[in-house]
């Protein structure tokens, strides 16, 4: 009986020690995937990484994926904004408030519009204490971006034309096509 009590006591102490083992361990640098620190660079695609720490593996994966895709969406917005601003300035409309709004609308809509074919191409899961640390790498093909931008610019064109009837959208489409040629 004495042995049994000692055994139960030892097990309890062991479990207590494991469960309250101090602070949550942080990720070691050697554990962090290389592609997370330095996402790949490509001419025809955008890569962005995301990570998340959760006690549930499925949640950690979902959160890391969502953050990687969000980073892609933000990169897209920036790229489209720059592209549109360049075009507007070349057209002599750069300082026009309506032109700026048009640029902003197209960029935001493209970024907020459905990300087609934005895939998680690499993923790693590390155990850190009681939690899972998920790392995800998202890839987005630039050809999809070109299509989205063209479609959105055409959609916004109708609204913008009410204010600027003489704007030449063929030039804008040519500018966007330049990006397409980079992606091929």
């Amino acid at each position: 009986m004495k042995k049994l009590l000692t055994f139960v006591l030892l097990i309890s102490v062991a479990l207590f020690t494991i469960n309250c083992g101090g602070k949550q361990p942080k990720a070691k640098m050697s554990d962090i995937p290389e592609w997370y620190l330095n996402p790949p660079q490509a001419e025809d695609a955008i890569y962005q990484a995301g990570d998340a720490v959760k006690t549930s593996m499925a949640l950690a994966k979902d959160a890391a994926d969502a953050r990687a895709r969000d980073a892609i969406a933000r990169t897209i917005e920036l790229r489209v904004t720059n592209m549109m601003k360049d075009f507007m300035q070349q057209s002599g409309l750069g300082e026009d408030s309506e032109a700026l709004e048009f640029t902003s609308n197209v960029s935001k809509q493209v970024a907020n519009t459905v990300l087609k074919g934005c895939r998680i191409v690499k993923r790693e899961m590390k155990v850190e204490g009681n939690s899972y640390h998920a790392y995800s790498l998202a890839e987005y093909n630039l050809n999809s971006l070109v299509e989205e931008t063209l479609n959105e610019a055409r959609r916004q064109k109708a609204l913008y034309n009410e204010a600027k009837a003489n704007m030449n959208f063929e030039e804008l489409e040519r500018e966007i096509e330049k990006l397409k040629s980079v992606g091929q």
Partner: protein
Amino acid sequence: MKFRILTVVLVIGLQNLMYSQEYIPSWFEELPEVTGVRLAVGYSGKFTNEFSAKSTAVQLARKNMAKQISIRLKFDVEELADGRLRLLNPSFKEFYEGAVLNAIESNSTVVDSAITTDGYFVLLAFPAVEYFSLPDAGDKTWSVRPDWIENLPEEDGYVYGIGMVARYSNWVRAWQDADEYARFDLGKNLQIEAESIHAVQRDNRTTIESVILKQSYDLTIEGATIVARWLDTANGVYYSLCRAPKP
């Protein structure tokens, strides 16, 4: 004496937890491809009798088949972060046709089944077939860790998704959830709407980033099939791979 018995019981229990589902039918790990016939897997845990186990496994296989034919998936995830805490709220909803399920019930056959120490497995074919031969069918142990866990497969005309779950005490529930997560993951790789607002506050000492992130999709996918599964027996992690033809 009691001490010894207790120790033996504890050791056996821990072994069962660590190495549960050691043997599986080959088609459970990798679904064979047969032209003209759709295949889906069903499984159930331990039952008091074989009939109940088989019946439960067949029902699950029929549901999996219905989802494979056509499934509407609604997913959204919201994340709110204010610099101190992050709240993540994912939502998963799926719909499949009752009429499709009825058609499967009336025109499908179990082409193979297996009983292991853990449960009952069935392989369902739709439409029903009279003769069916499976190459290399039989019970096996899990293969080595497949590459698709870290690197999503790339194949022209197909899109893939991965589901992964861990720390489940019930393996049937674990596989069901891994399969569902794989389907939803596939949807995300097809198309997803993404919106977010980021605000950064900086002072001399700290940087606080507040984020509101929202992503969602509502898609009907045809042919989403769980083509492979893998169990990390050492760590109790369940992986499912789902594949569908690109629309």
